Every structure is written in structure tokens, then in C-alpha cells.
């Protein structure tokens, strides 16, 4: 199932609507990486509010995503991790280290605004 990716100014926003299979997640990662290059986006928001489980695969894929987008000049922020999902994740040792996170879409946008303003010239 494809995740809709919206363009908002210089940002791309991916809102996950339902539980994703591994393949869906990988497709999302690749789609975002491609679109960052295509639209020269400066920021990416992935909204995982709907995900009720984040396991090692999801964690790894999101980290890969952040890495890939950064290589293409965009910052990625993951938003909407549920309290209990966060709890389970850290117990498993999945900390999404190196990946920025924010509470929700609103916070994510504020975060990107601040972060992208710090580096106004990005090629």
C-alpha cells in the first residue's frame, strides 16, 4: 500500500495511514529519497502516529531514510511516535539515534523551520 507524500513548500510530508508491511516501508523510504532529489526539498516529515508497533526493522528503515535524505540535502524528522510505542522501542534498545523526532506535525514543521533557517544556502 502506497503512502501518500504531500509537498508543502520546500518540505515533503508522508502521513502513514495504516499498518505497513516491510515492503511498503522500504518503498516509502525509496520514494522519499527520490522525491527529495526531484523537488529539491529541504525537509521531510514522516508521521507515524498510526503505527502501533515500531520494531527493529521499522527503526532501521527510518534511520536509513534519514541518512539517505540528508545525503540529498534534506533533514528528516519523525513525528507522532505514540507514548507506548516509544516505551517499547527503548526497552528493545531502539532509540532512533541520529534521527530527529518531534511530537506531531505542527512541532515537526516548527523544527524544520528552525533547522533549515540555520543553513540558508544549501545546494
Amino acid at each position, binding site marked *: 500500500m502506497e503512502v501518500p507524500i504531500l509537498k508543502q513548500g520546500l518540505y515533503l510530508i508522508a502521513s502513514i495511514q495504516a499498518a505497513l508491511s516491510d515492503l511498503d516501508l522500504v518503498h516509502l523510504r525509496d520514494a522519499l529519497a527520490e522525491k527529495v532529489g526531484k523537488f529539491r526539498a529541504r525537509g521531510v516529515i514522516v508521521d507515524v502516529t498510526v503505527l502501533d508497533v515500531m520494531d527493529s526493522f521499522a527503526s532501521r528503515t527510518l534511520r536509513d531514510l534519514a541518512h539517505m535524505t540528508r545525503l540529498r540535502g534534506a533533514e528528516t524528522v519523525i*513525528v507522532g*511516535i505514540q*507514548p507506548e510505542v*516509544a516505551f517499547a*522501542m527503548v526497552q528493545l534498545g531502539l*532509540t532512533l539515534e541520529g534521527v530527529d523526532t*518531534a*511530537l506531531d506535525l505542527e512541532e515537526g514543521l516548527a523544527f524544520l523551520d528552525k533547522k533549515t533557517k540555520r543553513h540558508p544556502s544549501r545546494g
Partner: protein
Amino acid sequence: MGDQRAKRNEDKGQGVSPAREMPPPDDVSTVSLLRELVAHLRKNRTQLREEWARRITAAKLLGAMTSEEMFAEATSVYDNYVEVLETGAVEALQAYARDLSERIIPRGVETDEVVGIVLLLRDVLARSLFAKYQTDFQLLNRILDAYEPAANRIANTVAVGFVQERERIIRQQQEAIRELSTPVLQVRERLLILPIIGVIDSQRARQLTEQLLRGIRTNRAKVVVIDITGVAAMDATVANHLVQTVEASRLLGATVIVTGLSPEIAQTLVTIGVDLGKMNTVGDLQGGIEEAERLLGYKVAPFSEISQQPI
């Protein structure tokens, strides 16, 4: 589960079989005997119930109830009792026992009272059987053979149901106490303070983490100050919970400042491999709050201008 009950019963010296199910009557005569005895108990319902109620009062049981309440419950128990004798279906009795317990435990009824009244009922019914069949000793014996195991099983079911309900309530209360004893405080917009006082064990630590994470989401907090000045010592497991709390909070977009870290606890953290340089720590709560405000962008201006604007 049946085996566990059997074990418990052996320990009590009751020697009855598991209360989970009543074995089907093994021959036609037992079935018809039970039917006969149930008919007798139903026919004499009114006076047997009254006799029982009288005995309960005489034994000073169920003092916490008014006599109307007591009579109403006695009626329900009596009818349930006879029904179980007839059908052998213990589930209905278990359900009733739990329901009854839920109602009377808050009223202060104790276990010995519940066991007491059921045993009194057993006795009242047994005596009425003696009275009825006294002329035929053999028949009386067979009636008692049918009655006794069933009656004992009922007493057991009610008592166990009562105790289990108590235990469930106690667990619930413990959980509530744990939750109450550590409030998550919102002192400013986007800033939460979690003062931890006293002894923390692993279970409490988990609960704190859950409460805090929910609080971050509800209050949309961006900074959390966890003050552990009031915590004397922490073992490695609990220290790890603290680290996990910091990490989980970050996943929700909140920064954690830990204040009141004693040298001992700092040592424990280092021992479990925490890089204290990466953890945001400040000496005391006051300092932590100031740091939090700084992070949130509050400006504390001199007298001439008063502006406190969050970013």
C-alpha cells in the same frame, strides 16, 4: 488450574476434589437422589432460609449489613446454592461469588464471615435432611453421599471467589497508589517537572515512565525536568529505566534535564555505560528549571522591560 486448587485443598486438609467442575453423577440413583433433595430444599425454602438467617445473626456474622440487605443476599445465595446442587454448573456460582464479593468487600465484610455463612447454610440444609430421612438410615446415608461433596465444593467456590476478588482489589489499589504518589506537574507551558521521591523499584520506575510519556503527549511538553534529589539510591536496573525514560522522551520530541544527581547515582549510571556527558544534568531543581526555561526561549528581563516570550 484445577490441579492448583486440588493442591490448596489438600493443604487445608479438606480433601475435596477440584472446584472447577462437578463430576456428572455416576449413576441414575445419585441423579434421582439429588433431584429429590433439591426438591425438598426448594419446597422448604422459606423456613430453611429463615433458620439460616437466624443462625447468621446468632453467630454475629454480616454485622456490616442491615437485616434487609442480609436477607436479600441470603435469598440469592440460597437459590444459587440449590441451583448448583441441581445442575452441577459451578460457573454460575463462581460468577455470583465474584459479584457478591465485589459488593460486600467495600462494606467491610471479612473472609471468615463469608466462609462462615456458607458453612452455616450447609449445616442448616444437612440437618433438615437428617430430619426428613431419619427413619431410613440407609437412604439418609445415600442422600448425604450425594449432598456432601456437592456442598463442600460450593463452600470452596464461594470462599475462593471471595479471596481472589480481594486480591484483585488490593492489586488495583497498589497500582493507584503508585500512580498517585508521583504526579507529573506542568509548571509552565511546554515544561513538565517530575519530582521523584523515595524508593523506586523496577515496577514503579516503569509506571513513572509511562505516566511521563503520556504527560508529554497530553501537555505537548518540549522540556521535562526529572528531579531525583529525593532518591537515595538506584540500582543498575532502575538507573537503566531512567536512561530509557530520557530516550523515550526524546522520541516524543522532548528534552530531558535530570537534576539532583548524587555522586553515588552518577557512579551507577557510569557503571552501566551511560555517557554522562550526553545526558543533560544540572545540580539542583531550581537550576534545572532555569535551564529548561532557557531551552524553551523564555527571556527573563531586567526590571525595565518585562517580557516573557516563548519561542
